């Protein structure tokens, strides 16, 4: 890979299968999981990498958290060697506590609340870009299924909001990472958020349980589909689909091909 890409890959923790599959240029990342194989650990890992991006430019991140309070992420990331409190203070990390979203005081349509949320996110991204941090900014949503619930089931409003977040990726050198629970959506209920997100995504990371059942050393399998829409997203070997196993640890996660663990 070209030197600049290699440097970026190192910042993002190159050397593991996940970063190899993702490449540095992926803009819209959709992480799918289910009850048997939760993928919050992927978000934690990507958040850590987004904040760790060094090289002078520095990265930044905005975490839109509906699933957990700040203390949870702080505790988890601390075990992974990343101090969220410090990043929050230094405004590297912008934490949006959305557990009460949209909130009773808002009134009006959910679309307005989402528009206001988007406005806040855009402001944060613009501020970061204007500052010394010219590096890649990451907007992370944990998670879209809860956002849909907060929007009273209005997938269209959520999709509108997500579309605007996607425009940030093309206009402001920004990545969007969203988590969605794949097992909530069944095809009998008609087309839902999941199908739309799969089209929007440049990269899909899907966590699934092992077909053989539970195991102590392997927690599940991860499939990464890199659609490679833009040339800088193309993996060197032209491969588009990766499939490997993972094990979640206190300080991160291990990724390995089946059978290569002793």
């Amino acid at each position, binding site marked *: 890979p070209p030197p600049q890409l290699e440097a970026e890959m190192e910042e993002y923790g190159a050397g593991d299968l996940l970063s190899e599959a993702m490449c540095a240029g992926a803009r819209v990342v959709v992480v799918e999981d289910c009850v048997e194989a939760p993928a919050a650990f992927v978000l934690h890992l990507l958040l850590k990498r987004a904040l760790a991006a060094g090289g002078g430019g520095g990265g930044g991140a905005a975490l839109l958290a509906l699933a957990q309070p700040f203390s949870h992420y702080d505790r988890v990331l601390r075990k992974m060697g990343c101090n969220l409190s410090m990043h929050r203070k230094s405004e590297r990390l912008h934490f949006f506590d959305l557990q009460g979203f949209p909130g009773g005081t808002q009134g009006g349509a959910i679309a307005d609340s989402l*528009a206001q949320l988007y406005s806040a996110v855009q402001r944060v991204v613009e501020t970061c870009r204007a500052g010394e941090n010219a590096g890649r900014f990451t907007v992370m949503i944990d998670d879209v299924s809860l956002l849909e619930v907060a929007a009273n089931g209005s997938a*269209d409003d959520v999709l*509108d909001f997500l579309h605007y977040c996607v*425009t940030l990726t093309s206009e402001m050198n920004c990545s969007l990472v969203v988590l969605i629970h794949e097992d909530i959506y069944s095809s009998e209920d008609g087309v839902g958020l999941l199908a739309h997100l799969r089209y929007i995504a440049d990269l899909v990371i899907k966590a699934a349980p092992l077909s053989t059942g539970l195991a102590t050393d392997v927690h599940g399998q991860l499939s990464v*589909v890199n659609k490679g829409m833009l*040339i800088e997203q193309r993996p060197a070997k032209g491969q*588009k689909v990766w*499939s490997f196993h993972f094990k979640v640890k206190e300080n991160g996660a291990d990724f390995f091909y089946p059978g290569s663990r002793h």
Partner: protein
Amino acid sequence: GLVVVAFDRSPEVYLDIMLRHGLDSNALSRCVRILDCYSDPLGWKQNIRSEQHQEDSGTPCSTNKDTITIFRSVKDVDKLSCSIIDLGRGFEGEGKTYFSVAVDSISSMLRHASVQSISGLLSNLRSHDQISSIFWLMHSDLHETKFSRAFECLSTMVACVEPEVVDSVYGEERRGDMSFLEHNYSKAKFHVRLKRRNGRVKHLYEELCVEGYDVKFISATSVSIEVNQSLLPKVQFNLELSEKERSDRANVVLPFEHQGKGEPIRIYDGRRSLPEAHQDPNLTTAALLDETEALKSANPKGEIHYLRDSDDERPDSDEDPDDDLDI
């Protein structure tokens, strides 16, 4: 000219694609207009700017001011229709200028407006005298079948990209087995359904292959044969022909093809199936011309000499000879 109604990707992506495919920037600025429904479809960004008392920066990219026009009210289908037509009318040219409209994508449009209003928009554009063609993209799995069908009915040609390898449900039942996806991301089946003016439908099948930025089409005649055979209903008697039956049929001489006088049957293109043609080394175009000459000089007796073009054209086929007419 071409008007691109862009919902799903930023305008620069389309310009980039066209540049990559050899269109130079002069041609682009002359012949391409993009209606940008991607950057601010609902006007949220404009609202933010006015709240912050900022000046409207207009189009996001200043170098493409004329080529890209931003559109902020995608729920207003009438306004959208007018904007498309206005952009198209802006193409310069001598005499009457025609333009085409490309919509990426109808699926995104359907999130903001009803099926009726969008089919109304398409009908409206279709009947506009300056619009030569309209083409749009639709993700069929994002809509109920009836809506996909409704848009197919509106069109004269439907091109479907279908996966080569079909798994039950996106790997749901065989969790983790994504190997088929690798194949499906670079190859696909391409099926075109063409509706003729006389109502007949023509099918074309090809294989599509994506390599980097290039898309290659490989005609798959073998595929079409399989499909044709599978169209026969599954019944308990045999509806197909064996090889011997096929060759026997080819050997049948039809009533209007001979005069019953024992004259040898002349076929324009020497056919292998007829023993005479096979044994007759003299059956050439020259020989045929001689015969035609002889016919002209003979006394007009009101005979019909039928010369068949080729083996493939089965008599009484439902090919309408008027198909070639472009009325």
